[in-house]
């Protein structure tokens, strides 16, 4: 299962502050504008991820057994 498209989005998230702002406001729209081709479950996941979390806050969520 290739995660190439997701990897590119994450790279853009890290390197592009304007893209980060767009993702926080409208993740589906922001990704659609990049032309990325995601799998159906990846599209569904997109709008359920809390893109406002900082790296440290996200690390705090890594608390599953």
């Amino acid at each position, binding site marked *: *299962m290739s995660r190439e498209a997701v990897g590119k989005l994450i790279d853009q998230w890290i390197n592009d502050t304007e893209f980060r702002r767009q993702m926080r406001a409208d993740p589906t729209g922001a990704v659609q504008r990049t032309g990325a081709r995601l799998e*159906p*479950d990846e599209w*569904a*996941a997109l*709008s359920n*991820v809390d893109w406002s979390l900082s790296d440290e806050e*996200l690390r705090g969520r890594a*608390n*599953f057994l």
Partner: protein
Amino acid sequence: MMKTDTAHHRQGRSPLAGEKVSVVEEVFAEVRSLVRRHAADEGQRHLLETALMGLEPHACRSEPVFFVELPLLVYGAIRGDARPAVPLAAAATLLFLGADIFDDLADGDRPVHWDGRSHAEITLAAANVLCALTPLALDALPAPPERKVAMQATLATGLLRMSAGQHSDVTVRQRNQTSAADIEAAVAGKSGEELAIFAALAAQFAAASGEQVEHYAAMGRALGTGAQLASDCYELFTDPESRDLVHGTPTLPIALHRERLGGAEREAFEALLVRARTDEAARGEIRRQLIAGGGLRMCAFIVETCRQGALRSLAFANPREPGAGALRELIGSISFFPLNLPSADPVSGAWHKPQTQEEQIIR
């Protein structure tokens, strides 16, 4: 699979909520009864009881406990009442136990309750639990013979898939530079299949249609895969022991990060991984690089993808309430974003089942 010795407490996240401990006790009473009924002699009974030590306390204090909750909730989502599935949860508990012991053996782990027992005895216990007690537990279920034959086939084929996943996992670890896709596939094979078996057996026991059984199995597979990936993130980013780094076990965040590095950066990262086996500062530096490089965020996204896959399969299985809601809660327990509710009709609050691929994509 989520191992017993990496137990972490996520209080208040079990759909069984207040009655969880009593349900777990009931399931383990059934397991102990199976051991007493079927052990061929006193020595074997004592060995099997030793194998059980540690699992019940783990089940009572950890959340979620998939081997208890998933069979009960799937059965309840089909038939309305989960209680008749307690003996099935006992069978699932035995399956988990046998696989967990084999996993410990593969990892070189040796929980303290095995003190005084030889490697051969531990292997024997795992084989007895998995190959004898689990099928016997299924055989004891109150179901028509043809349904039990189908369930035994589900168990056998599922175990073969799990074994293939375990085999991939072992060979993946031996390779120096494993791809993220290989790791994700091995996790799906090993941990995904285990929960697929639990869910499929419950659906079959509840006399679900073949199509429903497939949907529940797919739900379990996605849930098990996401849960293991979330567990790997916990081990890497939160658990002070960081056993995967110490053992040099390649997990998804590591592979994803490595794949996105260029030549010199990748070589430096490889050297850091080697140092991390013995050096806490190197382990801290790996965590820092993974977080800054987006590895954790990407894993969180992939776990969310698994959650969405599980929810989609559940919706196609046409579960009934309130079991459906409890299953959605269980699926949500793996997510980094538990407060973000799955797609629901904003007016009626009803769970929205996507009808077409286009509609799924729009969501």
